[in-house]
């Protein structure tokens, strides 16, 4: 077996002992969409509400101090989980907001520069002819915001294409990232293909041409040891709910320099230095990017999740998932009529494994699995262009996590065979 004591871990997650669809024990293999939460995370949130809840950074009474301490302690814990300084960690509601925050730095700076060029940092000002580079395996969250920046600034979107086995095709990288490039924003680990990209190389290329380098770490930070500083990016975005944390919280890490240079995004209370009726000045990061009452309880919950993962050890998490990936890929490769979309081996790939079944629509595959208690994701996984690239409308995706073991994968495979049988498409 693998390094982790999966039975003990499973017992920490109340939902994993429930049943679905009339008594089927739940086999949750949809952690790429969202992870389940251990009891300690739920306890941490509740404990905050029952003992320390108050507005943070604004009050001076005892509870306000406790709430502020809890919030900033959480920031320190989460920052240290990714090897960062807490001053460089911004809380958002999800990774999508984090990536939009990054994208809006460009469209906002560009709009402000029309009227007051000195008020913004020229790195963020775009014009027709400038390019923004993404990949063909981006989640919509790291694609649509950049399309919108292009609509607002006249810049052009470019993308790094994919090879047939689901890797980045870097053969023409020099004509994709070039002197016109102002942003390179790429996914670290694809949520649909599972591919782990050479982000350090791409960030260095970005910096060679003075572009801002951004990484979507949604699928890497929950699943492997990540030191955000070592990735070489200027900004790294991820979500809490995929790493055992509550819904409603995400993160954006940035270098001090870039966070300082970016204009604010959401504006209002707690992100200001001084406000007059007709003008304002802004606080330093991270406060500058955290307008309004923040997701305090969620930060406290996410910190508990980070501690839980730290206790297991992210090296062990990665090794465990690698073993599951190898096992799953081998089984799927051996199934007649089943084709993996993405790397069909376990090298430089994470545990999100997409596949199609000849003659069967993913919705129908997923439905049969569901009827046996196995929860997988079907659809385009918010990576519709990636599906088109592989000539499929959608896929079925198995995405295990720390609470899954080989027997869970076995059940999924049995379900696939049952679907082939039910729809009469046995090879």
């Amino acid at each position, binding site marked *: 077996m693998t390094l982790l004591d999966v039975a003990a871990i499973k017992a920490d997650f109340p939902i994993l002992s429930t049943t679905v669809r*009339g008594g089927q024990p739940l086999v949750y293999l949809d952690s790429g969409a969202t992870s389940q939460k251990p009891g300690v995370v739920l306890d941490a949130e509740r404990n905050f509400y029952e003992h320390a809840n108050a507005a943070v950074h604004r009050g001076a009474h005892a509870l306000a101090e406790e709430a502020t301490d809890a919030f900033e302690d959480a920031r320190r814990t989460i920052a240290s989980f990714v090897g960062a300084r807490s001053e460089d960690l911004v809380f958002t509601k999800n990774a999508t907001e984090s990536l939009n925050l990054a994208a809006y730095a460009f469209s906002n700076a560009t709009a402000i520069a029309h009227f007051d060029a000195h008020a913004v940092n020229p790195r963020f000002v775009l014009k027709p002819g400038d390019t923004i580079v993404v990949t063909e395996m981006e989640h919509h969250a790291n694609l649509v915001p950049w399309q919108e920046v292009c609509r607002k600034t006249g810049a052009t979107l470019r993308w790094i294409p994919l090879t047939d086995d689901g890797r980045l095709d870097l053969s023409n990288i020099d004509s994709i990232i070039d002197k016109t490039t102002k942003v390179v924003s790429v996914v670290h680990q694809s949520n649909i293909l599972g591919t782990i990209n050479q982000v350090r190389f791409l960030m260095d290329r970005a910096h060679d041409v003075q572009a801002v380098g951004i990484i979507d770490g949604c699928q890497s930070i929950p699943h492997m040891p990540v030191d955000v500083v070592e990735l070489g990016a200027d900004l790294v975005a991820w979500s809490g709910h995929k790493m055992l944390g509550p819904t409603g919280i995400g993160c954006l890490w940035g270098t001090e320099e870039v966070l300082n240079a970016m204009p604010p995004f959401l504006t209002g209370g707690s992100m200001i230095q001084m406000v007059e009726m007709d003008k304002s000045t802004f606080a330093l990061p991270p406060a500058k990017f955290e307008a309004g009452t923040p997701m305090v309880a969620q930060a406290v919950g996410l910190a508990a999740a980070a501690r839980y993962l730290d206790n297991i050890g992210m090296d062990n998490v990665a090794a465990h998932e690698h073993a599951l990936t190898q096992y799953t890929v081998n089984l799927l490769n051996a199934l007649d009529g089943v084709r993996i979309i993405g790397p069909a081996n376990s090298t430089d790939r994470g545990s999100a494994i997409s596949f199609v079944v000849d003659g069967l629509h993913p919705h129908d595959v997923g*439905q049969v699995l569901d009827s046996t208690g196995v929860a997988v994701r079907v659809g385009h996984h918010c990576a519709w262009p990636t599906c088109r690239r592989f000539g499929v409308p959608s896929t079925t995706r198995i995405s295990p996590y720390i609470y899954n073991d080989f027997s869970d994968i076995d059940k999924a495979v049995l379900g696939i065979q049952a679907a082939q049988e039910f729809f009469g498409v046995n090879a």
Partner: protein
Amino acid sequence: MNLESLYQDIILDHYKHPRGKGLLENPLASAFHVNPTCGDEITVQVGRNEAGGLVIGYEGQGCSISQASASVLVELLQGRSIQESEEVRLAFLELMHSKGSGDPDEEVLGDAVAFAGVAKFPARVKCALLAWMALQDAEIQAGLLKTGEGA
């Protein structure tokens, strides 16, 4: 396993042997709908025959439920009057929103009663409705139906 309540034989039959699939030569209007969560897509076209009845054509790709539903739609409504087809469409909508507690009228719905089980699977209701929403849209565009009617 409650698969059989969802995938009734009639549905599987329509999925494997779709009726009336294909586009029209001279449609009055055409509506393209997608299910944005899974990428399933359908094009439904409408025209009228000499007697004033509906002529329907369609093309699409998607799961068994969405494709069977389109096939059933065409089989049921091809050649019917606008009024009759509206009655059927509204009855189908009602059935799909019944959460499985509906008591479908086979006189009105014909083979479409087989979708009663789908209503118990909220995530699949959208699949079953895809063609029917596109039909409504095409009819509105063709001026056969007023906006918002029964929707």
